[in-house]
């Protein structure tokens, strides 16, 4: 029926390298709606062949992607195919060569090498348009690689619950040629600063952390322009565009919780700390508690964990410690997050006292600030 309605779009015929096709499907499919209850078009990938080349689109109304593909377009057209099905097919493609997609009626036939399969298509009339920010006056330019690591490392610190949408989001603040990205789940907070090439832009926005993780998987390595307005942001690169809804809420003034004074500071080798933490963690109790003792006299940082069912373990690291004695307990998962946030060889821990948060930084890495609230002892 669709074919009769749109006779000029009916007979799409394109040919794409298998590898490009698979990668594109892998990237795009994660943006499709996974719940089956909604519109069938939302759980589909839309393939467009037109004047500006071949494109794949998918959206779950939270995020959306519009990806350009290299390929040969023999004849123009539009078709929507269930994403999961396409994902399975893409996963089964092996070797070099091309895949040809040919659309006729409500069936599309995929030919690759000797295999040929026909898939029933989904009506694409219902497929929504991917919204670009309405008046994207604000643009920032960043390398995709950097953005990807930023997203995937920081997003882990955001709150997994959506009860407070602002805490389930990453906070982006652009000011004075510096991009600050913050995430907190109210137990710990990560702040990362990145210098920008284009100065003079100001603005803040909140992107849902869940969306950021998905976007991180699909970002290309090259330069990416981030455009944003009040409700929407877009990541535009030469290979296409990814959009996400923004959280419209006020972000708490997180700077107030960062302690300004300190009573003890320790610097340890990352390698030592990582292995010691890994070993001590085995003995952590059900609250995942690991305690840190600062011993400035003996220049030791002692990690201690005790589980009444298993036993206990303590490990002292030689460290450079300045200040007074202090003992604080933390959730070990929060402690180990720092290793994914910085690549520095040494790590500095600055404590402001009992019951107050500890600040962890990479030595020589001024971009990161990581803060953890201690557990009650």
């Amino acid at each position, binding site marked *: 029926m669709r074919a009769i309605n749109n006779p000029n779009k009916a007979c799409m015929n394109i040919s794409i390298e298998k590898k490009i096709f698979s990668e594109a499907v892998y990237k795009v499919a994660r943006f499709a709606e996974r719940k089956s*209850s*909604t*519109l*069938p078009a*939302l759980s589909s990938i839309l393939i467009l062949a037109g004047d500006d080349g071949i494109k794949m689109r998918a*959206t779950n*109304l*939270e995020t*959306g992607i519009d990806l350009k593909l290299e390929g040969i377009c023999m004849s123009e057209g539009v078709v929507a195919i269930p994403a999961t099905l396409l994902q399975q097919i893409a996963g089964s493609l092996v070797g070099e060569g091309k895949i040809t997609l040919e659309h006729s009626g409500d069936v599309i036939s995929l030919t690759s090498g000797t295999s040929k399969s026909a898939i029933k298509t989904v009506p694409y009339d*219902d497929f*929504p*348009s*991917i*919204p670009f*920010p*309405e008046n994207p006056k604000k643009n920032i330019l960043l390398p995709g690689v950097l953005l990807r690591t930023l997203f995937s490392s920081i997003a882990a610190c955001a709150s997994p619950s959506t*009860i*407070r*949408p*602002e*805490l389930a989001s990453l906070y982006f603040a652009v000011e004075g040629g510096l991009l600050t990205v913050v995430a*907190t789940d*109210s*137990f710990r*907070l990560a702040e990362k600063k990145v210098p920008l090439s284009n100065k003079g832009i100001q603005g803040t926005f909140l992107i849902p952390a869940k969306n950021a993780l998905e976007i991180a998987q699909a970002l290309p390595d090259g330069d990416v322009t981030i455009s944003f307005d*009040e*409700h*929407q942001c877009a990541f535009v690169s030469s290979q296409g565009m990814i*959009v996400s*809804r923004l*959280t*419209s*809420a*006020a972000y*708490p*003034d*997180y*700077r*107030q*919780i960062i302690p300004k004074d300190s009573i003890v500071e320790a610097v340890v080798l990352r390698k030592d700390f990582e292995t010691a933490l890994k070993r001590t963690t085995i003995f952590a109790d059900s609250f995942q508690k690991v305690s840190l003792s600062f011993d400035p006299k003996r220049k030791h940082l002692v990690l201690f964990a005790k589980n009444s069912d298993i036993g206990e373990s303590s490990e002292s690291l030689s460290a450079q410690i300045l200040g007074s004695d202090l003992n604080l307990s933390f959730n070990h998962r929060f402690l180990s997050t720092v290793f994914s946030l910085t690549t520095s060889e040494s790590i500095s821990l600055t404590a402001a006292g*009992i*019951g107050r*948060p500890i600040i962890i930084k990479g030595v020589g890495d001024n971009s990161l600030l990581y803060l953890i*609230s201690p557990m*009650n*002892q």
Partner: protein
Amino acid sequence: MLVLQIFRNKRIIESTMDKGNPRELWEYMLTQVELSISSANFNTWFRSSFVVKIGEDGVVYIGVPSQFFKDWYLKKFHTLLLKIIRDVSYEFRNIEYMIVKDERRKPMKETVSAGRGALELPLHEFYINKSDNLNPRYTFDTFVVGSFNDLAYSAAQVAIQRPGITYNPLFIYGDTGRGKTHLVQAIGNQYKKQYPGRKVYYLTSEKFVVDYTDAVQAGTANRFKDKYRQYDLLIMDDVQFLSKKDKTQEELFHLFNALHDTNKQIIFSSDRAPVAIPDIAERLKGRFSSGMAVDISEPDPESRMVIVRKKAALHGVILSDDVVEYVATTLTGSIRELEGMVNSIVCHAQVKGLAPDIAEVRQSLRSFTRPQKSISVKNVVGRVAEFYGINEESIYEKTRRREVVRPRQVIMYLLREDFRISYPSIGTKLGGRDHTTVIHSCEKIKREIVVDTSLAKEIQNIRSLLV
């Protein structure tokens, strides 16, 4: 058929719908839209939208969750929706779409304006420093001194200035809700501030008992001893709960000696004087009163007014003098109840944005004052009869069956003890009995309660039913 139904629907809705009400308008639009598009489409696009407002100029504002929706509405549903609202009334000229926040995101702004970081906010009120167990909320700044507690207050100050020497131990007692815990914790907090290097520990006697039994069970009694002996100031709240716990008392006795000999300050609190605590070893009693035992009596009206004013001011609400006086004189309970009342006034004030006047306070206090005990004899009889599972009528009869006699005596006892009804009138109300019978019954129960714990428990249960 379908068409007919639409017509009918429309006519009904048009005749009853309030066109100016955004909710009703949206409901009507939904019924119309649902007929025109597929249900998957409807569920996807219309579930989370609503009419925000209807403008003066005939523009209907529809709130949608995101840009996706806005674009799609404009592209796909605009003509349909426009047609629907035009059918309702020609006053509606146009539809505009706006992206609105989720309802539940709105209140977040308030926490931000509170001026504190979100991280520390939840901790602040309830935060207890685990190394000394003290609640930082209790300080001398918030402690109201009046004639009822100035002796306790000065004793506390002396104990802080010359810890372990002048008044050791300091024993503070008074009825519940008089501010004992506040005072002893304030001492701890002040001590901590004044002597930064020294160790303070606050605990309730109940915690001490639990700690001790745990330590004995785990075979770490020595560690337990060491733990408590290291403190420079030990504060134990509610020591009256140590009664009958002989082993723990012994342990406390040794701990007391160890701390006292090394001139470490000890502070106790209790709801009664040391000598009046039942079932506690004599040697411990003697030690409790060996230092300084001061009581906190009932606050006088002036102090109560100061307390009310101070508590309200803490929450940033300034109450007028007549309101303060009214609250302080009406509630004759503990300071804790006073505080609860102030909290409810503060809550009112925060909701309304201004401090309540005397009339409003009187109104809200009405719910706060305790209901008068207006319980009839018949009611008591009914409850007790029900409790014992016997027929209510049999109470009034002349029968002397065992299962009836006991409940009857209990009823008499309760009417006399709790409701202060005279012996003769109890007699007449319970089927014309002589007042000497009633006296005998009451005395009997009174005697038996002392030895028979199960009876005492029964009566306790009945009392809770009668409240």
